[in-house]
């Protein structure tokens, strides 16, 4: 690694640390009653969707496998997380029609002998298991499905997601999944608090943002590793990749399972943020929303997916809220601005964005690279200007020079 690369990595680490610190501060400063509390909601939901979008981008954008099963894998993650963290005491009220078969909660068990730290570790373990279970399902479904290509793969994975939703609502699995009833009272973001002698530290925004940041960081590392390059080779030309020694079956499976692992974690975070887990939330419409974020941000750009997710969530949850509730930008027109109008405006905005940014907002570039390119361009322009300014007097001193060139050429 060269010095400049190390420098760049340090900068990225510092920026990430600073970002997380700012989130932690925001978490304490903004009270739930303030008008800015919407910002926290957006950050919570946005980070979850950003993780989901980046994991989908790993599959669709970097490996070229067009899969539409993300809602299904997020559902698996959300249910696994919820089942593993519902406190034992609350089991019977949650599973009111069934006899719950899982009767322990990982955070609770660990906190009984490690205190609050145990809860943190327990939640971490539950989130990881959520990802692993999703990856296991991905492996099993990937064995037959990954032989398919493009549209067929999309249809097969879409079908899988719908089947998962139906299975989770199936009465026979009630003791595990609570049938078509929702799962609740598990460890959610509002439970992440720390009492420091009077003042309470809240982590309700920090936790999902932190998990998403770590996971996206891992995906970035993966994409830039030798395996990430092999994925891109498969996307660009499968036949050439295979001929140059990339094992297609193995690498497609790796990419699929990794993507679904992070989708499962995103599902677990989603359950944390929404504080319920319900199969009917994870419709195929959710997959399309995530796909939209990926396309808006730019297929094959991780920062693009994050930007896309954040813009999408803040527009639909915050900025355009007024369109549904009567007043928007100070205009009070309850006749037009009522339920559903927001979606009309939102769809138009999306169409406009897609028309003007054909490749998505970032194309296939990453934000730091784009900034770097912009800087070099500006620098080169400035240098060219300086050089031109320096040349003008020189040219005036030597008027014979331009005459000689055509002669030499002839």
């Amino acid at each position, binding site marked *: 690694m060269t010095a400049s690369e190390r420098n760049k990595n340090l900068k990225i680490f510092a920026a990430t640390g600073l970002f997380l610190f700012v989130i932690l501060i925001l978490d304490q400063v903004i009270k739930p009653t303030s008008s800015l509390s919407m910002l926290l909601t957006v950050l919570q939901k946005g980070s979850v969707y950003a993780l989901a979008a980046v994991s989908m981008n790993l599959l669709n954008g970097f490996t070229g496998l067009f899969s539409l099963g993300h809602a299904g894998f997020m559902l698996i993650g959300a249910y696994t997380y919820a089942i593993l963290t519902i406190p034992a005491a609350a089991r019977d009220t949650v599973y009111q029609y069934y006899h719950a078969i899982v009767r322990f909660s990982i955070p609770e068990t660990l906190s009984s002998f490690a205190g609050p730290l145990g809860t943190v570790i327990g939640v971490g373990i539950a989130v990881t298991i959520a990802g692993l279970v999703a990856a296991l399902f991905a492996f099993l479904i990937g064995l037959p499905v990954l032989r398919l290509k493009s549209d067929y793969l999309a249809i097969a994975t879409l079908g899988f997601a719908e089947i998962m939703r139906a299975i989770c609502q199936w009465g026979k699995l009630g003791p595990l999944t609570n049938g078509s009833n929702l799962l609740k009272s598990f460890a959610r973001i509002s439970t992440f608090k720390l009492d420091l002698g009077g003042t309470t530290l809240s982590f309700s925004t920090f936790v999902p943002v932190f998990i998403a940041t770590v996971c996206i960081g891992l995906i970035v590392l993966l994409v830039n590793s030798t395996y990430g390059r092999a994925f891109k080779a498969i996307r660009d030309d499968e036949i050439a990749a295979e001929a140059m*020694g990339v094992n297609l079956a193995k690498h497609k499976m790796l990419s699929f399972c990794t993507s679904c692992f992070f989708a499962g974690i995103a599902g677990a975070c989603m359950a944390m943020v929404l504080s319920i887990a319900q199969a009917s939330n994870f419709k195929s419409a959710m997959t399309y929303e995530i796909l939209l974020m990926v396309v808006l941000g730019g297929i094959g750009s991780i920062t693009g997916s994050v930007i896309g997710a954040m813009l999408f969530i803040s527009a639909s949850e915050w900025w355009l809220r007024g369109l549904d509730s009567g007043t928007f930008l100070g205009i009070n027109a309850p006749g037009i601005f009522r339920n559903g109008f927001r979606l009309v405006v939102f769809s138009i905005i999306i169409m406009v964005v897609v028309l003007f940014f054909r490749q998505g907002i970032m194309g296939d570039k990453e934000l730091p690279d784009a900034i770097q390119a912009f800087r070099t361009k500006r620098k080169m322009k400035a240098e060219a200007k300086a050089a031109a300014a320096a040349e003008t007097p020189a040219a005036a001193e030597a008027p014979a020079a331009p005459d000689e060139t055509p002669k030499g050429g002839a």
Partner: protein
Amino acid sequence: MAKVLEVENVTMQFGGVVAVNNLSMVVNEGEIVALIGPNGAGKTTAFNVITGVYQPTNGRVAFREETIIRNHPQGKMKKLYKGEIGEYYTKERVLAPTPDYITSLGMARTFQNIRLWKTQTVFDNVLIAKHHQSRHGFISAMLRLNRDEEKAQRERVRDLLEIVGLSDVQNELATSLPYGKQRRLEIARALAADPKLLLLDEPAAGMNPQETEELTEFIGEIRDKFHLTILLIEHHMDLVMDISDRIYVLDFGKLIADGTPEQIQNNQRVIDAYLGVADDA
């Protein structure tokens, strides 16, 4: 001289079409062997069988004295197959490895229509070909525990680009290169896999005489530098006659002649295949 590649009775049948019919050939160590023939003679199909893209209907391919591909007519093909030696391999186990496995054994190829990874830089195109040599697993590559290996690979790719004369364009997109350099890059990419046997599918397609001459020189150079054995398909007869030690001629899937360039030039069957036989002859 050791046999690097041995093709024995290979038949490739697509339904009723026999693209390669009972082809047998040998490539010895250090040789440059050309496979020629009119359009549609089955040369590229033969390449695809050797590199594992197609599973042959019948026959055996050995690489460095070890059988890597073996098949006999199965299922529907059994009925369709009219070859005389269809029963020859039936008692042996079927071997049908994927192309990536064959590449890892030390056989690398280029393509007739250039197949570079379009969104990658020249450097990355060559670096990806080194991926199958990494000994580190998925997780350790993700957590950057393979730093030394990666550094060594990058170093070797840099050297390789220096040798093939592409180091000045290494950070450009592969598709932004002029045609001749794209061909050169494809060869460089194949070399990055550290092959013993290099298969070139029409390396001079679409090149002008001067570029062809440069390529001829280049192929000779890399053969000596990397101790390669080369099997190539080509239509430019100047190039073929110039560099090949031996030539195999295919016509309608069948081997019609083999020998040194002089023998081939004077072979009546070859001349007939290329120019056609007069009706009144």
